[in-house]
């Protein structure tokens, strides 16, 4: 099982009109903002301003960005502890995310959730789940609800390669297919679980795509570092779900630039592998493509500058926010707002 993955290739798709320049700029902007956000998060760890753990997706921005741009505002997303980007692309502010990482009152949940549980129901970001597999059936449930209510909302569920080996994956996929639910399952195959290669512990080469047929689905294996490919695949899958065509399972091959979490320097990865993937960094790669496509470099620089200003401002606001009031630890265990289990 030590084989390297075969070169990820875009799945066969019906020919589509080229992506328009405005959308391309939006894709670029989204990736840059994600990149800034997580680099800043990394800096804040280094300054010990973030106390708990945190899981960065540096290098994987194309997946969140491609989907974020393709989704309808009222669609739902469900993601993992590695979900800063997936939450951000739905419209949540950088301040709210950084504040949550720092555990202060500027945080999206004022510190009650933490880095692994970013949620903004208002933006359709229905939660970040830290136990492997759990959110796949939950995302299916949101899709069921949309189907029942007839709203044409789609539920998008992001997870990692390692997640394909846990039972909940299997149950959710089968369930979604038999009920023809409007849900898109997106496996970000970044080649590793925590510190172990997915290829050491998986019976098939492509952990998600090679399982699609077990649910009567088409295998969809794409380059997760190519934001255009992700975007087009997302458009397809969302459209299929929205129009009653049922679920999709997409495997997007990508790579995280750093370790699994704050505690991990990622030393188990061969140097040449890391180098190869740094060379495929989705952000500069896309920048280059846009220039080739005659997009004005000034437009890109403007995005870069604006994003930097944004994250600087967010950092300032977030780091100056006071600690949460301790009383909030007592509220919202139950719907009456309280923690009272007795009467």
């Amino acid at each position: 099982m030590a084989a390297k993955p075969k070169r990820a290739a875009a799945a066969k798709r019906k020919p589509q009109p080229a992506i328009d320049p405005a959308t391309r700029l939006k894709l670029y902007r989204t990736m840059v903002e994600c990149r800034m956000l997580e680099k800043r998060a990394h800096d804040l760890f280094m300054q010990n301003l973030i106390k708990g753990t945190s899981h960065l997706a540096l290098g994987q921005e194309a997946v969140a960005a491609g989907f974020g741009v393709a989704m309808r505002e009222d669609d739902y997303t469900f993601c993992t502890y590695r979900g800063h980007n997936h939450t951000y692309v739905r419209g949540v502010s950088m301040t709210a995310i950084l504040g949550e990482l720092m555990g202060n009152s500027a945080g999206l949940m004022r510190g009650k959730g933490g880095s692994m549980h970013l949620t903004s129901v208002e933006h359709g970001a229905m939660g970040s789940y830290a136990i492997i597999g759990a959110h796949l059936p939950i995302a299916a449930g949101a899709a069921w609800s949309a189907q029942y209510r007839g709203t044409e909302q789609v539920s998008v569920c992001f997870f990692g390669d390692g997640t394909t080996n846990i039972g909940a994956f299997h149950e959710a996929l089968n369930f979604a297919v038999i009920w023809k639910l409007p849900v898109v399952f997106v496996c970000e195959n970044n080649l590793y679980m925590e510190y172990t290669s997915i290829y050491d512990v998986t019976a098939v080469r492509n952990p998600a795509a090679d399982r699609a047929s077990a649910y009567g689905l088409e295998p969809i294996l794409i380059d997760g570092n190519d934001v255009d490919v992700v975007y087009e695949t997302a458009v397809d899958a969302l459209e299929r779900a929205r129009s009653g065509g049922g679920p999709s399972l997409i495997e997007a091959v990508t790579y995280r630039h750093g370790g699994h979490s704050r505690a991990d320097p990622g030393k188990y990865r061969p140097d040449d592998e890391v180098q190869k993937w740094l060379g495929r960094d989705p952000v500069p790669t896309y920048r280059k493509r846009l220039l080739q496509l005659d997009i004005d470099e000034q437009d890109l620089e403007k995005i870069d500058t604006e994003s930097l200003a944004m994250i600087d401002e967010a950092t300032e606001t977030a780091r100056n926010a006071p600690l949460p009031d301790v009383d909030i630890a007592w509220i919202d265990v139950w719907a009456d707002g309280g923690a009272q289990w007795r009467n």
Partner: protein
Amino acid sequence: MAQLTYREAVTEGLAQEMRRDRNVVFLGEDVAEAGGVFKTTVGLLEEFGPDRVRDTPISEQAILGATMGAAMTGLKPVAEIMFSDFFAVCWDIVANQIAKTRYMTDGQTNLPLVIRSGNGGGARFGAQHSQSVENWAMAIPGLKVVAPAKPADVKGLLAASIRDPDPVLFFEQKSMYGVKGEVPDGEHVEPLGAAKVLRNGSDVTIVALALMVPRALKAAEELHAEHGISATVVDVRSLVPLDTQTILSEVAKTGRLVTVEENPRLCGWGAEIASIVAEELFWDLDGPIVRVTTPHIPLAAADSLEDAMLPSADKIVASVTELVD
């Protein structure tokens, strides 16, 4: 008032709420076409149709995951987990996801859902189909936990559970499905979190739940008739919220507490109530607090062995007389 079985009261409670609110939907294994393996949901598919009453695969994580996702997005789903022992295959969704999500999201999410399940022993199903696991649920902050003993409560508390904005685990004692009782006609809703004093006594307060309630009542009769001991019997009905007011005030009156539970001994809800009383009512106690429980063993399948292990009226009588004499 109609005489209904415990089983029929489940159907009535569900149907009452489904008629009232189109967002109440119901899913589980063999619940639709077959009407449930315990026949608790017969006729619901016919009345409410296949969009609202749905058969699922044997995928408890998917069932409860879907229930949670639906509850977060506007529905009021009711799920059936056929035997409560099977909570073990989907405990993550219950204990880590459903129970914690409102809190972790700082109150952003609502989870108005109910999970009904056949709980408890007495049906000779053996160790993996006979457990009383209401104490597993009680141990998890964020859940509500209900366990009715009588058909009227089944209907009224199930209705209240469905209307409740929080996730409720609703434990039906499976060997009581055939038991009959009076059930109010028409809309019937009982508040959650209210224990019921079923008998007033002066010597000892017996606190029981579900199948243990009729046994406690029977024991109380016998204690009165044969030992001249006068016992209060309280049906807890809901473990969360817990009606500590009623329990404390009833124990204060008699000065003695005996809890009767079906759980294996360690960390059952009886221990919780006993320690609340030992802390808050210590100076009013006239004697030790006694817990009658199933021993700390799995349940055997053979009827003779199962009967010997579950708390019986006789065992309650013996424990109370030892305490009070």
